[in-house]
């Protein structure tokens, strides 16, 4: 087997050194009643060529573009990934390296993550970013736990327009601690109703997602003011960070913690993972922040270099008193996003975000033109809710037969939206694709 270099001769000579007769003898410390009685019941090993054929077979059953036109977002977005980024990520010095605990021979990872931290902080308008969390959902859960630690209060409020899966993950994380989760109401325009915050003075934090699950841009400035009036920390969450190439970032609108999903930035959707939990906060809270941090320093000859720092927050030092239990994070995905942002650039990201926005507006107008209702009239980015005319289920199924996936059905999560779908458009959607959808819906 090509991953096992030992020859029989080498094994024999090594066994002699160790003083054991055979490989089984190496396991004498294992009590017999712990051992397997039979061989592992797994399929026979495949050759590289058989594996390829098998995986091709599985892959062929999956619906992807261009065979299918998939207008789905909901926390996972189709964006073009430059070949240069995929190529650079394939450099095994990045992918086969471990966590940079030995900084002298990990400066590649360390500088790259320092750059990622910087670009992330700039994108979100915040002072410091960590080296990543698992995904936007766990990042939000950790942000709430961080706010609870800082304020020493036990209650948090969440917008109902945060991604339903994110709210579910938050409930799982906050459950054991007996923390109370309050759900805020929503407005008819598709935004969060923050008016009730005036009466709440015992909240650790209030979390709002923007663009929210319906694609609507929230009024973060007003939310920030109301939340701070109530003495709580303002957590802004997101699933589509490309929006900040066009819209005001949460940091400049008063957010204390900004966290979310970075998959849009150069990471393939891969059936939902790995993604990228982006996490930022104000410098004054940095010692309460979870996750790894890369800092700039100098070596003994005065050369600039980078190290993991403020490690006393983390589990390997603080153990049960650590800010979080996180160890392995999503470093390579963070690297991918930095490479992507470096490639798209400051000028490019504005143009790209505008293009995304304009295409989405085109589809909105087109669908309205054939009798669809767009129930929420707030500004949106890449996603919007639509109500199809004359019978939702039939329209959806008919489109599916034509290999068009007309968005994400909302009824299961939001029963008040039974005939509604969440449609997504990005720079990868062509005018022809949209015209076809409009035509089919209208017919």
């Amino acid at each position: 087997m090509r991953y096992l270099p030992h020859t029989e001769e080498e094994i024999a000579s090594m066994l002699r050194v160790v003083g054991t007769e055979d490989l089984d003898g190496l396991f004498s410390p294992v009590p017999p009643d712990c051992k397997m009685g039979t061989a592992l019941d797994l399929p026979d090993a495949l050759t590289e060529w058989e594996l390829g054929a098998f995986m091709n077979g599985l892959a062929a059953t999956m619906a992807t573009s261009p065979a299918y036109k998939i207008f789905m977002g909901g926390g996972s977005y189709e964006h073009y990934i430059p070949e240069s980024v995929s190529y650079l990520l394939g450099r095994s010095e990045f992918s086969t390296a471990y966590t940079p605990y030995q900084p002298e021979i990990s400066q590649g990872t360390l500088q790259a993550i320092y750059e990622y931290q910087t670009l992330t902080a700039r994108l979100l308008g915040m002072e410091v970013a960590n080296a990543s969390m698992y995904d936007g959902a766990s990042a939000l859960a950790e942000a709430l736990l961080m706010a609870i630690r800082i304020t020493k209060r036990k209650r948090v409020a969440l917008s109902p327009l945060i991604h339903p899966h994110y709210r579910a993950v938050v409930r799982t994380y906050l459950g054991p601690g007996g923390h109370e989760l309050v759900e805020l109401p929503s407005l008819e325009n598709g935004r969060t109703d923050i008016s009730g915050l005036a009466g709440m003075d015992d909240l650790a934090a209030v979390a709002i997602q923007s663009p929210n699950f319906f694609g609507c841009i929230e009024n973060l400035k007003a939310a920030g003011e109301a939340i701070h009036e109530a003495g709580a920390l303002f957590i802004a969450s997101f699933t589509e960070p490309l929006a900040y190439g066009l819209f005001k970032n949460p940091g400049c609108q008063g957010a204390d913690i900004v966290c979310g999903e970075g998959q849009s930035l150069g990471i393939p959707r891969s059936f939902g993972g790995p993604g990228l939990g982006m996490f930022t906060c104000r410098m004054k809270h940095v010692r309460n922040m979870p996750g790894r941090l890369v800092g700039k320093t100098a070596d003994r000859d005065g050369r600039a270099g980078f190290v993991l720092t403020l490690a006393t927050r983390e589990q390997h030092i603080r153990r049960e008193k650590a800010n979080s239990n996180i160890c392995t994070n999503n470093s390579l995905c963070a690297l991918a996003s930095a490479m992507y942002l470096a490639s798209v650039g400051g000028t490019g990201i504005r143009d790209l975000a505008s293009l995304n926005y304009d295409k989405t507006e085109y589809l909105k107008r087109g669908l309205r033109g054939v009798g669809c209702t767009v129930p929420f009239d707030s500004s949106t980015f890449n996603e919007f809710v639509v109500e199809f005319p004359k019978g939702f289920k039939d329209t959806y199924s008919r489109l599916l037969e034509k290999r068009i996936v007309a968005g994400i059905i909302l009824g299961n999560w939001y029963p008040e939206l039974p005939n509604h779908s969440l449609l997504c458009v990005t720079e990868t959607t062509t005018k022809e694709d949209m015209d076809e959808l409009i035509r089919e819906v209208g017919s």
Partner: protein
Amino acid sequence: MKEPQGTSGLIFNEPLLWEKGKEGRIGFSMPRRDVVPSPVDEGLAGDGPDFPDLSEVDVVRHYTRLSQWNFGVDTGMYPLGSCTMKYNPKINERQAALPGFADAHPLLPAELSQGALELMWHLERYLAEITGMDAVTLQPAAGAHGELTGMLIVHAYHTGRGSRRSKILVPDTAHGTNPASAALCGFSSVAVRSDERGIIPPEAVAAVMDEDTAGIMITNPNTLGLFEENIREIADIVHAKGGLVYGDGANMNAVMGIVQMGKIGFDVMHLNLHKTFSTPHGGGGPGSGPVCVKDFLAPLLPVPRVVHSEEGYRLSEAFPESIGRLHAFHGNFGVLLKAFCYIMSMGGGGLKRASQLAVLNANYIKENLEETLYLPYKRPCMHECVFSDKLQETEKITTLDMAKRLMDYGFHPPTIYFPLVVHGAMMIEPTETESKEDIDRFIEAIRAIATEARDNPDLLREAPARPKVRRLDETAAARKPCLTG
């Protein structure tokens, strides 16, 4: 080998991204504009982030140069104890990049995603077979995430029986993620001491196990590289008082096809796919930490779960006792896929052989170095062995100094200062993918360094001399953190 492996190489200085580029450059092919611009609400519009503008060449050179400052498994031996830095097969990368998988949306209707769901279904069953457990979740995104999942399951199990237990037993050799994960569930950790043989004596567990203790978290083989020989008795003691046994499967690479974790008393355990199952470490992730449970805990597993009927595979949330969701979608599918490919490429016999050779390599190193470095536990080890710097104390040379000098010899240092029970610990895990000649070279390097420690200790104190940077000022980095540029 006549010359030491480490040299200086051709390494470039490379500035930070924002110190490069020129306004107007771009490294991205902007897609064609086929729609008219639409107005944006002025009150919401922003200025966009302050990013540099770089050409494709700028970006490619930047990251190519950065990569050359890194040591990876593909560069050389990476004997980090408890990390299992085995070779990462390239064919698995290619399969993960197949458009059918890479471009798949996680919320696709089931009938349009059968391939991915089938893969997950099979992987669950293979991991159950390998561990000897009954049911599996692939959702946790890393080992620590798996530990949290396991702790939540333990918590839910006791709450479901109307029992509010507040403590978890944690051995003194445990990885820091163990007590941290327990704390996230509101458990307080009670330490259990290993004995002079480096394993947990049953009496130590019996002394602290009571009806207020939810269970024990135990790593087997443990972080000293030793098999917890008393595990069945320990499990019985914990079970007798109604507690559960959580297994930290980080060291599974020692026992595949040899030990049946289901038999030794584990009720719930996690695996690290980026360790045992060859998925790349990525400089710190992404990983994947599936959790395997006995049947009686299966209803508590996170949702959604893959279910199978004549109509095929689909995801279901119809599990009312589930602890809930832990990930935005279904876990790190891209990582799961690579582990699946690895298992398919190795087969049952291959996995067992991998474990046998991993243990052979570690014992071979132990035999060869026990005169050179202090060996606290003079017994056969499993897939890793722990030494310390006790023999070098007279020269005031530490484990850290020896680790730094190893870099000059062309090796990544082993794990240092862990586990905490050995002062100045150096934990060496070669894995099965290291050849005898690479291991012999490693042994020679350690011997040479031990000699230098005696005859020329400054070489160690000044090490490393060869990489791009020398030892870095971590104190300054912590006192005056500079975390963004």
